C-alpha cells in the first residue's frame, strides 16, 4: 500500500514538473496560435542560468530560481520582439521550421559555451533525501516541486480567468482586430504573455535539472513530452494541460514501476487512446476553429 502512495506522489511531482515546463507552450500554442517548438530552449536557458549562478557564483538555490525565471523571460521577450512577432501571421509550417531551427541553434550554442556534459545544480542539504509520512516515502525535493507548481497553477488560472489582463489576453486571441479597436494593445499583450510562458519554462528547466538531467540536448529530448502534454490536454485552457500532465506523470511512473518491461510505452499508449477518444484533447474545443 505504501508503495502505491509513494508512486502516486512521485507521479504527481513528475506531472507537475511537466506542467510547469509545458504550460508556456500551451499558452503560445493555444492562446496565441503559434507553434513554438523551441519552447524547450527557454527551459534550458533557465536551467543553465540557475546552474551557473549556484555552482560558479555560490548563489543560494532559492535565490537563483527567480533569476532562472527572469532570464528566460528576458531572452523570450527579446526574441519575441526581434523574431517571433514577424511569424505570427505566417503559416504553421513556417513557424515549425523557424522554431526547430532555433532549437538546433540553441543546442549548438550551449554545447559550444559549456560543453556537452550533464550539468548538476548543487542543492541545499535541506532539500536532499526523503522523509516518512505514515510509512510513505516523500522526497523533499519532489515535495518542493509539487508546492511550487501547485501555487503557480492556481495563480495562473486566477490571472487568466479573473483579472483584467486575463480578459484582455482572451479578447486579443479571439479577435485581434476587434480587440485593438477597443484600445487593447495587442502586440504588447502577446509579448508579455510570450515572455511569461518562457519564464515559466525557465523555472521548470531549473527545477528539472535534478530529476530529468540538464544537457545541451534538453530542448530536443523533451520536446516530445511537451507536445504530448499540450495535445492530450487540449490547448484552450490551463486546466487541460494541467490534468494531462498529472495523468502522464502518474501513468508513466506507475507503468515503469508495475510493468517495467512495458514502462516506456505506457504514456504513448495513453496518448493514442485519449486522442482517438477525443481528437482535440481532453479539454479541447469540440469544434475546430
Amino acid at each position: 500500500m505504501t508503495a502505491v502512495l509513494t508512486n502516486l506522489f512521485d507521479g504527481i511531482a513528475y506531472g507537475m514538473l511537466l506542467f510547469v515546463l509545458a504550460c508556456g507552450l500551451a499558452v503560445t500554442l493555444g492562446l496565441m496560435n503559434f507553434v513554438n517548438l523551441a519552447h524547450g530552449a527557454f527551459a534550458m536557458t533557465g536551467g543553465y542560468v540557475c546552474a551557473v549562478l549556484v555552482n560558479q557564483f555560490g548563489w543560494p538555490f532559492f535565490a537563483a530560481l527567480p533569476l532562472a525565471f527572469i532570464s528566460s523571460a528576458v531572452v523570450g521577450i527579446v526574441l519575441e520582439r526581434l523574431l517571433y512577432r514577424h511569424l505570427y501571421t505566417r503559416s504553421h509550417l513556417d513557424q515549425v521550421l523557424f522554431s526547430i531551427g532555433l532549437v538546433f541553434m540553441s543546442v549548438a550554442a550551449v554545447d559550444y559555451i559549456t560543453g556537452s556534459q550533464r550539468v548538476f545544480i548543487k542543492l541545499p542539504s535541506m532539500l536532499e533525501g526523503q522523509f516518512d509520512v505514515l510509512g510513505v516515502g516523500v522526497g523533499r525535493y519532489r515535495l518542493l516541486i509539487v508546492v511550487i507548481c501547485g501555487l503557480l497553477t492556481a495563480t495562473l488560472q486566477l490571472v487568466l480567468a479573473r483579472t483584467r489582463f486575463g480578459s484582455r489576453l482572451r479578447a486579443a486571441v479571439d479577435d485581434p482586430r476587434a480587440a485593438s479597436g477597443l484600445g487593447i494593445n495587442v502586440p504588447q499583450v502577446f509579448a508579455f504573455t510570450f515572455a511569461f510562458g518562457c519564464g515559466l519554462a525557465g523555472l521548470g528547466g531549473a527545477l528539472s535539472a535534478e530529476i530529468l538531467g540538464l544537457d545541451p540536448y534538453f530542448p530536443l529530448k523533451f520536446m516530445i513530452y511537451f507536445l504530448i502534454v499540450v495535445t492530450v490536454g487540449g490547448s484552450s485552457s490551463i486546466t487541460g494541460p494541467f490534468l494531462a500532465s498529472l495523468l502522464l506523470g502518474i501513468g508513466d511512473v506507475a507503468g515503469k514501476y508495475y510493468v517495467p518491461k512495458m514502462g516506456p510505452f505506457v504514456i504513448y499508449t495513453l496518448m493514442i487512446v485519449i486522442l482517438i477518444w477525443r481528437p482535440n484533447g481532453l479539454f479541447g474545443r469540440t469544434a475546430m476553429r
Partner: protein
Amino acid sequence: MFVQARKLSRWMLGAIAVGTLALAPARAEDSFKIGLILPMTGGQASTGKQIDNAIKLYMQQHGDTIAGKKIEVILKDDAALPDKTKTAAQELIVSEKVNAIAGFGVTPAALAAAPLATQGKIPEIVMAAGTSIITEKSPYIVRTSFTLPQSSTIIGDWAVKNGIKKVATLTSDYAPGNDALTSFKEHFAAGGGEIVEEVKVPLANPDFAPFLQRMKDAKPDAMFVFVPAGQGGNFMKQYAERGLDKAGIKVIGPGDVMDDDLLNGMGDAALGAVTAHIYSAAHPSQANKDFVAAYKKAFGNRPGFMAVGGYDGIHLIYEALKKTGGKTDGDALVAAMKGMKWESPRGPISIDPDTRDIVQNVYIRKVGKVDGELYNVEFETFEAVKDPGKVKK
C-alpha cells in the same frame, strides 16, 4: 545556364581529382595519415573530446615523426551515428588515403567501419567502444579501450566473495548494457549469488524514480548498475534522494557509471560506490601521475578512461610503425601490434595476439575523497584479464 554550371562544376571536380591523384603518391612517401573518427557533437561528445585531447597530448610529448614518417591526424565527427561513421571512413580511406582509422565512440560506429577496414586492408584502432564482439568483425581491428565483460565479470566474482548474496540489477536497454548484465549474471550466479530483481531501463530515460522504488522494495544487498556515462550522475543523485543508501543497498557495477569525467559533479551521493574498471585517475603509478598532471595542465580537467583509451591507441600506432621500420602496409602494422606490451597510465597492458583485443588489469575501486575531490580509489587488482567474451569460445 544551370546545365552549364553543372557541367563546369563536374569538370572542375574532375580536375581536382586528377590533381589529387597526381599529388597523392608524393605525399604517401613521407607521411602516415590517421583518420580519426569520433563523436565530437551529440550525446557522446565528451568521449570524442577526451580521446582527441589525449591524442594531441601524446603527439606533443612524443613529437610527430616516427621512423621517418610524419604523423598526420585527420579528425572527422560522426556524432556517434553509424551512417556518418561509414561515410567518414569511406571518405578517409578513398580520398584522403589514410593509413589507419581510429577512434569510434560507440559500438555501432566501430561495427560500421569494420568492413571498410577489411576492404582497405588498413588497421582500425578502437579507442572507446566496449562490446565484446567488435574485434571479431575484421582481422584489422585492434582495441585499446576495454570490453564490458572484462569489468562486469570481475565485479560479479568480487561481489560473491564479499558477502553480497542478493542483487537487483538496473541496466540500460542497449547492447553494452545487455553485455554487462549477461556477464555479471553469469559470474554472480556461478558463485551462488541470487538476482532478486532485473530491470532494463530505456536508453532515453527521463526519470529513474519508479525503477529505483522497485529496487528499494526488492530489498537486495546491492544493486548492479550500468547506465551510459552521462546518466550516472542523475542516477546517483536519485539513488541518494530515495534513501537507498540508508536502506543499506550498495551500488556495484562496471566503472563506466563512475567515469572520472563526471564523478566530481555527482556530489557525496556517490561516496562508497564499488565498481570494477580498467582506469582511475587516482591510479597510484608514476606513469599515471605524469599523465594526469600533463592532461590537467593542457586541458583544465581530469582525464577519464576514454582519454586513456585514446592515449594508448596512438601509442600503439607509433610503436607499430617503429617496429615495421616505417612500413605502412596494413597487414604488417597489425602483425606488429599483436602481442605488444607496454606500461599505460592505467597499468600494464598488452594486445592479445590471438584476438587483437586488449589484456589489462581490472581494479576494484571505491569512491572516496582525495584532497576534497571525489575519486575512484583502487583497492584490489585482478591481473591481466582477457576479454571473457572470447575466452569462453
